[in-house]
């Protein structure tokens, strides 16, 4: 399995961490960000989410984020998985795994990577509410 992926199917956080940890025995701190579908957005009740991406470009941007994280932070490895398609409330959407010798580096890299993902990755979220469907136009 690749460390950076976009996929329809769900992922296992444990398996993704194992994938990253397999790279080195010197990993002492792993920081994970998991984004999940929540039931409320701007006081609208959400029924379901639907994610679309720009195939090819989105994957390339996630790869870039991993490489820049490895260049700019003192981490050992990073994995990124983003789901597309229909996502129910409570389901996994996105996962970032940052592994380092020491925890501070892992925290910094993970926090940077999720912010950068939101900034540069061509992925779009549609919220399906009881009143209808709407493409989200701002950063959450």
């Amino acid at each position, binding site marked *: 399995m690749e460390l950076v992926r976009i996929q329809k199917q769900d992922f296992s956080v444990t398996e993704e961490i194992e994938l990253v940890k397999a790279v080195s025995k010197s990993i002492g701190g792993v920081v994970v960000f998991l984004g999940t579908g929540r039931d409320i957005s701007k006081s609208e009740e959400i029924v379901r989410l639907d*994610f679309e991406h720009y195939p090819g470009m989105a994957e390339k941007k996630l790869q870039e984020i991993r490489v820049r994280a490895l260049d700019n932070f003192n981490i050992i490895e990073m994995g990124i998985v983003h789901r597309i398609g229909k996502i129910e409330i409570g389901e996994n959407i996105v996962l970032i795994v940052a592994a380092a010798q020491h925890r501070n580096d892992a925290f910094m890299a993970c926090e940077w990577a999720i912010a950068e993902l939101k*900034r540069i990755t061509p992925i779009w979220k549609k919220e399906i509410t009881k009143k209808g469907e709407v493409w989200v136009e701002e950063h959450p």
Partner: protein
Amino acid sequence: MVKIRFFAMLKNKVGQEEVKLDVPENISLEKFKQILKKEFPAITEFLDKKSIMISVNQEFATKNTMIKDGDEVALLPPFSGG
């Protein structure tokens, strides 16, 4: 011929995912936007607000990007992944 791709709400506005368009050789991004507005008046508002980004061959375009025959251009509304 330039392939133009629309995503998210832009796809809905235009009513198509992908359009092929004949454009003059080597035109600037600004010029290309003028053509888009004429061809797709439904998205003029988006192009004027500058809230959308444009990619050329899957890289973000800048003011200096030139568009040429065979390019894949995409209109990218504000991202909301993550």
